[in-house]
């Protein structure tokens, strides 16, 4: 095993562990912090996949903005530490679903064959042109319509946020 695989294994283990902590922590704030940790691991994966822009966005938007909102909500709703109450009614269905998903993942991993064929953009292109430039080039020429629709989506979200929070409109 080379060092990069080893590093990946360590980060992946941390990601899975913090993912498990998200749903097992009694204190909701600790759950939220574990989720932030998971986001960091994901950002590390993006960096390892030569996608630094995605990594930066992952941290800025998810860890820096969305999780702050979630922590605010936890504080706003005054969620207390769960007192030893066990939730058992979902365990059976949950485990069945998890096993099925695991089988699906293995099935498709087995079926797919890695041909070694490469697309137009590989690590060298990303290194030379720059990841931001490549993403921007794609987004502002080929995918212009989805980009403009995003602005309308954001507008709807802004209006929704105001309507949710203000009592009298």
């Amino acid at each position, binding site marked *: 095993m080379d060092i990069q695989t080893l590093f990946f294994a360590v980060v992946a283990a941390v990601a899975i562990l913090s993912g498990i902590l998200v749903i097992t922590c009694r204190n909701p704030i600790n759950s939220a*912090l574990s989720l932030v940790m998971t986001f960091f691991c994901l950002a590390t994966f993006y960096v390892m996949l030569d996608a630094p822009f995605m990594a930066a966005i992952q*941290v*800025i938007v998810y*860890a*820096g903005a969305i999780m*702050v909102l979630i*922590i*605010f909500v936890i504080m706003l709703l005054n969620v207390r530490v769960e007192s030893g109450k066990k939730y058992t009614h979902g365990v059976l269905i949950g485990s069945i679903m998890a096993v099925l998903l695991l089988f699906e993942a293995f099935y498709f991993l087995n079926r797919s064959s890695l041909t070694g064929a490469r697309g137009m953009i590989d690590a060298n292109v990303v290194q030379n042109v720059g*990841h931001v430039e490549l993403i921007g080039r794609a987004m502002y020429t080929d995918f212009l319509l989805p980009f403009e629709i995003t602005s309308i989506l954001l507008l709807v979200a802004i209006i929704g946020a105001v309507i949710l929070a203000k009592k009298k409109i």
Partner: protein
Amino acid sequence: MDTTILGLPLIYYAAMILKVLVVFVFVLLTVAYATYAERKIIGHMQVRLGPMRTGWHGLLQPIADGVKLFFKEEIVPAQASKFTFLIAPLIALIPAFISFAVIPFGDTVELFGYKIPLQIASVYDTQAGRVLDLNVGVLYILAMASLGVYGIVLAGWSSNNKYSLLGGLRSSAQMISYELAAGLAIVSVFMLSESLSLQKIVADQSNFFSWSGTWYAFKQPLAFILFFICSLAEINRTPFDLPEAESELVSGFCTEYSSMKYAMFFMAEYANMVTVCAVTVTLFLGGWHGPLHPVLNFIVKVYFLIFVCMWIRATYPRYRYDQLMRLGWKVFLPLTLLNIVVTGIVIAAFS
């Protein structure tokens, strides 16, 4: 010299560890002596002397403060959420110190025939003959800045103290508001630099006396002023130090903290100030370019901006919270958008 680990020569690793340690110690010392300088400068501006007792003109004051805090009793309030209370100072401290990784503080130096760029997160690519640094350097800084809010909001919440909670909340709302304005203010710089790499942005400002290579502060004066003010607000410096408004909230989010844990918040605050000054120098004031030795240029500029921060603190009274939020959302945000649009039109008109 030919031994390589992971395709990089041994000297790269030696230089990397040296760079990390030197920069870390440099920031730490700057933080320590910024507290002393702040007390001295504000003292003299208010016709006082400031610290005078420990050492010649109080020069040993930061060390005395550090030792005192180190030996103080550590109090963990009985009703606090223990785990969060204990890690909040560390969460505040780490992002404050690691933003420095992408800031170039000097030219490339040659060591045993191997070129080493004076920037922590970078490597000299011998094949391409250029310095490779983070393609998203500026976004890295913004990402670390956006994490600064966690330390404060968690400290405020976990202390289980009303002053702490209010201080933490106020502070986090303020930080995210101004983070937005600061993030938008620098967009116009990227429109000129066509890159997010700090190496490229510094290289663009290499020639002070020609319009094409002058500092971005002259090409984008509004962005420069907005970015600096918003950054001061984001790191809770005076006149925006609402979270620690001692006349209203005792000590804000760190009311319940004592001993070294309090010192962590204190250091994080000053380290953030040093980072903001270094980022402003890199983005707007030509980075390490200048008449002196590159590293010296950089340090002089950063120290000058730190002095300006202290000068501002000695001059202006604190904002009220509603004024602060109005300034951020209703004045700075539209101004930054306007600046982007105007920059866009001017560039389009001249090309």
